């Protein structure tokens, strides 16, 4: 699940300088759940743009804008309004905007900002987040990731700024990650782990996708389908 919020209409109008007609794309997945990409929101966006003197040649809410094959088939009936539009305004997350831009060979304008959730979560939503660092050290941190749970992402212990176990950056809403790690290890009688664990120095090169994965068939098929049909 990605959470999005709509940009102010003034910002979107700034993107449309010199343009007269647009086609709107929404998404019935996460964006609809966020209240940015479903049918009611697309109609609202249509009204906002028309009030600013922009013609909306057509609109479509696709089930999932992150699915390029789905975008392609969903837009087949809309070739005429798409052709008349100067550009496409897409009201969804950064992934859906990029997928739309890949499929539709026209200028694409983002209507939303995607809000940071501080790392990806599991399919079954919980507060645990993974930064995909490529060097998991949960072994040493009681199964709690300080890279995502600590405001500073500190991997060798707390900064000392916590007050009453709460993070100094967001005291109302954030526990100190290291305080939680400490509590769990103390409860389990495993505090020695903190003393014996090696000094962590993150290899940020491993936070980029390895070239070995970029070279896999799965990645290649995705690229072939995309590039083959748009070129």
């Amino acid at each position, binding site marked *: 699940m990605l959470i999005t919020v709509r940009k102010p209409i003034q910002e979107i109008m700034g993107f449309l300088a010199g343009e007269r007609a647009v086609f709107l794309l929404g998404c019935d997945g996460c964006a609809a759940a966020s209240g940015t990409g479903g049918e009611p929101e697309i109609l609202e966006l249509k009204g906002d743009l028309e009030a600013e003197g922009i013609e909306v040649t057509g609109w479509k809410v696709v089930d999932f804008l992150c699915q390029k094959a789905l975008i392609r088939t969903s837009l087949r009936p809309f070739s005429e309004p798409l052709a008349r539009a100067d550009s496409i305004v897409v009201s969804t997350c950064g992934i859906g905007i990029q997928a739309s831009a890949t499929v539709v060979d026209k200028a694409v304008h983002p209507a939303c900002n995607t809000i940071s959730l501080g790392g990806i979560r599991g399919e079954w939503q919980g507060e645990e987040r993974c930064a995909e660092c490529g060097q998991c050290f949960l072994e040493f941190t009681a199964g709690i990731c300080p890279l995502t749970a600590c405001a500073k992402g500190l991997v060798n212990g707390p900064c*000392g700024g916590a007050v009453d176990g709460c993070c100094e*950056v967001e005291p109302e809403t954030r526990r100190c990650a290291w305080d939680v790690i400490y509590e769990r290890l103390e409860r389990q009688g495993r505090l020695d782990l903190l003393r014996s664990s090696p000094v962590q*120095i993150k290899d940020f090169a491993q936070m980029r996708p390895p070239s070995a994965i970029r070279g896999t068939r799965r990645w290649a098929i995705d690229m072939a389908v995309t590039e083959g049909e748009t070129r």
Partner: protein
Amino acid sequence: MKLTDLFREGEFVITSEVAPPKGTDTAEMIENAELLKSRVNAINLTDQQSSVMRLGSLAASRLLKAGGIEPIFQMTCRDRNRIALQSDLLSAWALGVENLLCLTGDHVSLGDFPDAKAVFDLDSVSLLAAAKGLNEGADMAGNELAGKTDFCLGAVVTPGADPVELQLIKMEKKIAAGAEFFQTQAVFDAEAFARFMERAKSFGVPVMAGIILLKSPGMARFMNKNVAGVHVPDPLIDEMKSSEDRPATSVEIAARLIREIKGICQGVHVMPLGWEARVPAVLDAAGL
């Protein structure tokens, strides 16, 4: 002059600190340092404390050194990645800086550029390890240096933190990474500090107690509410409240604290926060 040399000679080491200016006018900073010069062994130069953008601590360290005052170069991990941190360490050594204080640093959200990217590529522990590596002649990647550093490596600890056990564990990690002395967060409760030192003394690394000059009861209450690990006991707040001469009472409280703890630690670090001119009186009254 390295602080470690003084500790080795059994000296009770006294340090203080000054803050570089917001701007290029260093006159007041130099003036404050001059007020302290004859009474302290070295002076910390804070690194954009509270994440407020200021003149850099490396340039300020050099300015003090040129004026015959021993600087302690404070370095945080908030604004620089490991390339810049290591480079600045080499620069500092080339400019004559010998004492270093390694900190993680405040979060950018606390300062005047909350929209800045917070770096924290390294933290206090890994920065100490990196500095130790430079002292041994190699950078973090293991590349050999043409000319190495020889810093005295300092770190910080908060004796009043809760849980204190976590502070002690991190203190041990800092020592293992290379820390050779510690300056502490402000101490106001001598008994609590004694309990902390009972645990910390087994590490065998010199500890300098942090002393802040209380300016008012309001300042004490503010610190109790907002500063992690700092607790000003009520009797001290009452003493300030009922005082008819607050600066004199402030000096008396700081001096009394130093007298109470000087037997159980290896030095004091006085944070005057604008009251630099009163530090000599504190040290006189404390018998230092």
